[in-house]
């Protein structure tokens, strides 16, 4: 199994600002995934980050709003840009393909 560390664990941010979330994995992985879990809802994939290439975004998510970096095989960041209250969610980093997929503890973001 993989151990995934996310920072920060929670934050309260002003609207119009940006927050960068970090995800560190204890082993090298090809693909890292970023999910959003809105209040009372399930997880939705935002984008997939491969090392050395541009992230692939799901329908409804764009790079200008959620820029992603993947500088090496153990680390990725997700930035939530120009935040509004609608961005208040839990953001989760995940690794794994078939067989098993593991998640970090999540970042609980509140935008005021």
């Amino acid at each position, binding site marked *: *199994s993989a151990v995934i560390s996310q920072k920060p664990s929670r934050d309260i941010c002003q609207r119009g600002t940006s927050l960068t979330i970090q995800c560190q994995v204890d082993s090298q992985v090809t693909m890292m*995934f970023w999910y959003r879990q809105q209040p009372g809802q*399930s997880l939705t*994939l935002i984008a*997939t980050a491969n090392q050395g290439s541009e992230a692939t975004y799901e329908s409804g998510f764009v790079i200008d709003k959620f820029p992603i970096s993947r500088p090496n095989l153990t680390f990725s960041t997700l930035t939530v840009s120009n935040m509004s209250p609608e961005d208040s969610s839990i953001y*989760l980093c995940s690794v794994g393909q*078939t067989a*098993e997929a593991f*998640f970090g503890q*999540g970042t609980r973001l509140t935008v005021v």
Partner: protein
Amino acid sequence: EDQVTQSPEALRLQEGESSSLNCSYTVSGLRGLFWYRQDPGKGPEFLFTLYSAGEEKEKERLKATLTKKESFLHITAPKPEDSATYLCAVQATDSSNTGKLIFGQGTTLQVKP
């Protein structure tokens, strides 16, 4: 469109009262079906992956089964510490993204002592 539906949304059990959670899925081809447990304020914790109809997996009081249209998570003689939200997710074979998980809404289980 690939879709996952879980029922019930919420379930209250007495300690020792066995029950089952349902996960119905619609995908053109199933690569794998995943079960997770999520405690409040934490990320999902991996439980099982099932790949083909008829497959079963067990872990302590939990047993997951799979058919061509749904999966069940059976909880035998639950304890209060089994209280959590249980999430079901699928990976589809027709997805170009082999790691993408499509999640259901989850079932929130409360086990009373």
